[in-house]
């Protein structure tokens, strides 16, 4: 699925979502129309790269294309602008993580494509260490 990955690479590399020119609401993933005020004046906008963990889980039985990365930690993160995103949380054991921890975005390998053998990159989050 390398073409479909390529299509979204700016979204994946820069956390590019949408912002509404009319009401200022921000969204990730990007939208075609503002879900809040219904305006069509929506434009590309990069999300902030820091946030807090709302919830996380250790997935021990992932889908086939991620089997070699198990176990994986996945979390819902609320970014500084209030937008919630779904991402992997890495470089930390689950015992060192808790809800409310501050995290920041890093650029990592997501996977090697099953068909094309291309490397797909994108965003993950790590705990912010003082």
């Amino acid at each position, binding site marked *: 699925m390398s073409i479909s990955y390529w299509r979204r690479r700016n*979204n994946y590399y820069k956390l590019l979502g949408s912002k509404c020119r009319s009401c200022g609401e921000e969204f990730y993933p990007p939208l075609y129309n503002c879900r809040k005020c219904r305006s069509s004046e929506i434009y590309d906008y990069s999300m902030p790269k820091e946030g807090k963990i709302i919830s996380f*889980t250790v997935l021990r039985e992932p*889908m086939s294309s991620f089997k070699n990365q198990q176990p994986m930690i*996945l979390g819902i993160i609320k970014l500084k602008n209030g937008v919630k995103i779904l991402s992997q949380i890495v470089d930390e054991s689950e015992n060192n993580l808790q*809800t409310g921890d501050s995290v920041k975005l890093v650029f990592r390998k*997501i996977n090697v494509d099953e068909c094309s053998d291309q490397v797909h990159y994108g965003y993950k989050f790590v705990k912010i260490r003082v």
Partner: protein
Amino acid sequence: MSTNRIYIASVGYVEVSDHWGKSIGDLMVEAGLQAMRAAPSIRPDGIIIGNMFSALSSSQEHLGALAATGLDLVGVPAFKVEAACASGAMAANVGYSQVKTGQSEAVLVIGVEKMKDLEQPDITSALSVAESAEYTQYIGASFVALNALLTQIYLEEYNVTRDELSAFPVLSHTNALTSKHAQFRKHITVDDVSKSALISDPLRLLDCAPVGDGAAALLLTNESRINDVSSYPVEVAASSASTNVFSVYERDDMLEFNATKQATKKAFEEAKIDVQDVDTLEFHDAFSITGALSVEAMGFSKPGEGAKDAAIGKFSSKGEIPSQTFGGLKGRGHPVGATGIYQIAELWQQLSGKAGDNQIQDPEIGVAQNMGGIDTTSVITVLKRRE
């Protein structure tokens, strides 16, 4: 809105199991023939298949036409409806509309899923196509992970214990014990749930509906045809659907199943019923957490009390609103595209007095809730026994 009343003339289904010897076509035809043979005077003039991922499991699409040939109904218009795990109830919803608008006289609706030809990690991948390819599948988040994240939030928000949530799978297994078509006929306890393998914490193996093959069918028809078949027919009083913001984490309140809520409102309005009128319920317990949030969204429990209500027996066979009477998704099984039809077929059995060992006392109104994704699509079906 048409005033035609729609009835279920007959049902048919196969046991939910690992049907190594049966293909997707075999399963569809078996269930379909059962329903047709139970009402031989009605020849369907429409076929609708509910299925989620036949292309991935069986390299097979064009299921409607495949069923038409298999059922010896060549010439009958046929197509597939897909709405992830709500494909079954959604297919029934379309069938209901077709008969209601007079487009068809009798529609055969068959829900089918062939899951076991794939190995587990590939089944997980196939199920994940119900979520965003670009933003969810892309990072390896499957449904069990999403539901686990939701479970964490729910348990914390409402101070619900792990054991209270486990009441859902325990209930399902209890009812499945005497259900001949259930995939798992094994008693489990709250302790068994807590000891089962962690899949994505805090969800364990026994929190998750199993994977299996199945097919179930309904023959829907109008008032003029039903009297040939039954004197105490079961009416489809309402079938309503709604959608929610696609991915659960994109929603302002992740614990609110708005699609289920809206579909329930529309369906109950159409059927002219209230929560208190419902005698039996089939809710979408694909995971323990979806059971809790579903009963809350439909209004059978207050927000945050779904699990607590299950723990005190509100939904058990002797409880206030007997639910999952043949085992629900967890006990009877969840061959995803077929589930919605199994739910409706089981309600039909209850309301027709044909539920055997699982019969509950004199139910008149039954409700089924079938979801696609995590409340991304929700379909509510209301059945009424006509006196």
